[in-house]
């Protein structure tokens, strides 16, 4: 794993990472990826065993959805939730200007 790649991942993850940590992380990634790469040895067996079976589809996880209904009374929890927000204004959470 090279340093440029780690920096790109840090950017995608919205985390500022210092240069010395980037280097250490690249080394950690190499050892972790070397370890997890072993799964590639067996995954080909899966294709053989499962390509004709229905359960092939079962692994592709699906979302469980429900109606988006407001069940709480209006404002019943607003105060508690706003108390945790770093910045608020007039009952809203305040964010930096984006435009």
């Amino acid at each position, binding site marked *: 794993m090279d340093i440029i790649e780690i920096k790109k*991942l840090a950017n995608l*993850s919205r985390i*500022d990472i210092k240069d010395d940590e980037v280097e250490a992380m690249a080394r*950690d990634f190499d050892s972790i990826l070397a370890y997890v790469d072993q799964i590639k040895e*067996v995954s080909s067996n899966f294709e053989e065993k499962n390509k004709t079976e229905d359960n092939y589809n079962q692994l*592709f996880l699906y979302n469980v959805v*429900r109606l988006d209904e407001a069940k709480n009374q209006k404002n019943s*929890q607003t105060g508690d939730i706003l108390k945790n927000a770093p910045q608020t204004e007039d009952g809203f959470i305040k964010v930096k200007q984006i435009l």
Partner: protein
Amino acid sequence: MEINLKDLTIKKAHKLLIEHEIKVKDLVDAYLLEVGKKNKELNAYLEIYNNLTEQIEKAQSLIDEGRATELTGIPMAIKDNILYKGHIASASSKILENYVATYDSFVIEKLKDEGVIFLGRTNMDEFAMGSSTETSAFGVTKNPHDTSRVPGGSSGGSASALASDMALIALGTETCGSVRQPASFCGLVGLKPSYGAVSRSGIIAMGSSLDQVGPMAKTVEDVEIIFKVISKYDPKDSTSIPEEKRDLEKKPLKKKIGIPREFLEGGGIDKAVLDNFEETCQKLKSLDYELVDISLPILKYSLAVYYIIMPAEVSSNLARYDGIRYGFSAEADNLFDVYARSRALGFGKEARRRILLGTYVLSHGYYDAYYNTALRVRKMIKDEIEKVFSMIDVFITPTVPFLPFKLGEKMGDPVSMYLCDIFSAPANLANIPAITIPSGWTKEGLPFGVQITAPFLREDILFTIGKDIESLQ
């Protein structure tokens, strides 16, 4: 009246309480005395809750009115990632240091109904990422059996509190061994329930397809009592199992226990741990169990699969910590920098590493090679395990391949730390329950533990065989 905390169990405490030998306050005070003596050194609790008087009064009145259940008035330690309304739940992370829960988790709701006393919140690896409670933003927790050693993790604070008599029972959470491994390292019983048995509502998420809350205690019976209360359907968790699907046909036990030999041989087990394991298996034969070698070669890939799926889910779950809605927020000129700086300063090293790793395995070009491949192998693991259960009741392994290690020993090498969980991973990946039971002590006073794993929703088998293993000591 002097209360013998060392040998106390839920049933013994319950008897003392309902026969009015002691008051709830006496019991709580006895534990608080231990907290006063030991917590500074062990750092098991991050906080003792400030509403104990109120909780004690409520429990005592349930007892006085004859409405007590076995758990009424029983002091419990709560892991710091379980939401308890009005109290801080920080997941031992700087990013949630001052986060106050705005609602009760499902498990707290259920236990509150019983009149359980929540003593305080316990230290853990940050966001439950670790096997030693050393990645907490609030200091390491020590093992009460040897304070130069780790208590295990990530629920190390709960385990340390129990093993030092600072609580009678505790809750931990698991994504891969985080209840079982610290329970084993501290000489306790710890259960990882079937996925969907206990609601995840109000639990700070790590790996959502793997996470479960699990009880810890000194005995199997205590763990069983807690499990029965928290193991209920919850519409707020879309993966919670509806009640009607929980009643499985319960065939009589075969009294057959499988030993997955190849898996053990590849596990890098210490000699002392292996010897204790073989000895426990031998003793089980005296209780008319048949021990058979089983072949599950796929299990050796479990931890590798876990270290792809878990970071993928971590990177998604931890995206919500943005420094905007709650939690730590760093000053910056623009929105991107508020995110990037809050997350850089708020997350510890292990959390940052796992977020980046998860982002990598989910990124375009690597998604199929890592994440999709891991899902396939996970399915294979599940199928192979299911097949083998037609021949046996449970399979048995050591809980951890080695004894509690020294503080700091594995912090520099992530892969060696990850290997703590090698025997834990199959149960989480296959959604099935597993329990660790104490199985003896070294000459130096460090605990051994063995783990048994049962089919989906068959916690009852774990309790039956677990009590037999317990009786061997």
